[in-house]
């Protein structure tokens, strides 16, 4: 994997952006890079980058999070400090963008600076098992809506197709037609196939498999 100074993760809501952004930030930090991750999600007050604060801290990743993240204040405010990511060129910056076009509006204010520097990767996170993006055409529509909202073009795709705890290697393999078609329709390369650690280990025949350690839940729920 070659890395750009800025990596932006955007996509349909619930596609797995935050888990991927957190793991990617830690991955870069392990390579000895100075990494900073910013939570720019102005849409959903739950499942935030801040949930992984401890893990990020122990990996040496700086977390920039909205002031009221993980409180009862459901406020779509951006942290002022987030400008550091685009301005401080000595760090590797990761941006965790909110879902869909609505989430991508938040990115708009940084776009001029990002484009001027030109050292970025904007990643579309795709999961064909989500109900509103079952086909490559549906995912492409979401992709275009996001680009329209933030005025920045995607450069890469991450295939994060999964069925949560039911995900097997076959689940990922079954998504390859989808992701190849999305790649050909959009003209963008597949940067990685991401999957939870236990599944990633079995995907030996795929190139660029990115294992994810998922954010731990408060407790496991039994099925009913």
């Amino acid at each position, binding site marked *: 994997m070659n890395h750009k100074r800025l990596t932006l993760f955007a996509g349909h*809501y*619930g596609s797995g952006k935050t888990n991927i952004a957190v793991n990617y930030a830690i991955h870069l930090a392990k390579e000895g890079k100075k990494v900073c991750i910013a939570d720019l999600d102005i849409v959903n*007050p*739950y*499942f935030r980058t801040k949930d992984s604060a401890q893990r990020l801290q122990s990996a040496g990743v700086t977390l920039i999070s909205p002031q009221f993240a993980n409180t*009862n204040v*459901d406020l779509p405010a951006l942290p002022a400090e987030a400008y550091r990511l685009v301005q401080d060129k000595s760090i590797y910056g990761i941006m965790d963008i909110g879902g869909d076009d609505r989430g991508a509006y938040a990115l708009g204010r940084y776009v001029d600076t990002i484009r001027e520097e030109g050292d970025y990767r904007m990643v579309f996170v795709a*999961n064909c*098992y*989500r*109900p*509103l993006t*079952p086909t490559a055409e549906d995912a492409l529509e979401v992709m275009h809506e996001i680009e329209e909202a933030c005025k920045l073009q995607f450069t890469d795709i991450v295939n994060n197709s*999964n*069925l*949560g*705890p*039911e995900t097997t290697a076959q689940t990922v393999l079954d998504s390859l037609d989808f992701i190849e078609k999305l790649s050909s329709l959009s003209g963008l390369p597949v940067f990685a196939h991401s999957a939870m650690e236990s599944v990633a280990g079995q995907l030996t025949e795929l190139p660029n498999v990115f294992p994810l350690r998922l954010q731990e839940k*408060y*407790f*496991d*729920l*039994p*099925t*009913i």
Partner: protein
Amino acid sequence: MAQRVLMKGNEAIAEAAIRAGCRHYFGYPITPQTEIAAYMAKKMPKIGGVFLQAESEIASINMVYGAAAAGMRVMTSSSSPGISLKSEGLSYIAGSDVPALVVNVQRGGPGLGGIQPSQSDYFQATKGGGHGDYRMIVLAPASVQEMASLTIKGFELADKYLMTSMILADGTIGQMMEPITFEDTEVKTYEKPWALTGTNGQRKHNVVNSLYLKPDELEQKNIARYERYKVVEENEAMWEEYMMEDAEYCVVAFGIASRVAKNAVVAARKEGIKVGLIRPITLWPFPKKALAKAAEQVKGFVCVELNMGQMIEDVRLYTQCKKPVSLCSRCGGMIPSPEEVLESIRKAQKGEF
């Protein structure tokens, strides 16, 4: 087999509603249910349905009233403070005997409260909320799959008994994702000869109204409505029993609390405590028969809820206080851990209620 999809609870409700034939959604955004409205906004225009974000909760429930009177399968959704605003409309809908589906993805209260999960609208849902003598069928899903199946069931029951079905979920099930399947089962529909569909000059006009000028007539309407409620109570109670066959103690919990409680029941069984779980799926009608039977069998009950103790009153009522009932609860957006529930089960075994 139908395709597995990874869905949020809120999305599952919206998709199930569409599959149940709902083509009219009126809502107003509020966390933690906004994905229902967002899903409808995306899908309804593509299938010739109506998604309308009203100017308020009060407007949206009255739009539901109107569409229901016209015979449509119609729904709205909100979260706790928004349901309070809709309460007047819920009473008018009940007083007019028209069917509707209302979703409450509960958050912590009272007042503006918070945006984390809660079950503190149990009283509001099962005992009224709006004014007057009326009931709603209250369905309490405990998984994303049930968010879908109970939404379909809710539409069917609403049409069958001409009343409101409420999905009483909470922020956790609304927000969490689980893989689910939509089976291609047939959804029941019912003739609606009373609906305001236009007479075409061919029939006498229908009237949908909750105003009665003569008190004796209003009394008769109420009595007839309660006859119908009696049939619902007799036939439509739903519940799940888990490890109850030889149980000496019984945990009672619904929705997300029942999922946590199930962990605790399994853990307690490993310690040799004979404990089972009764999970009400309908909160109204309450599974009276299951509780009455358990009261003859067990030594005591542990009621697990995300509130200060609301369903516990019905547990005491329908067990006729024959056995002690303890409360294991958290509120304000907090969820009891499986360990906390386990500790309550251990105490019950020691006779501490």
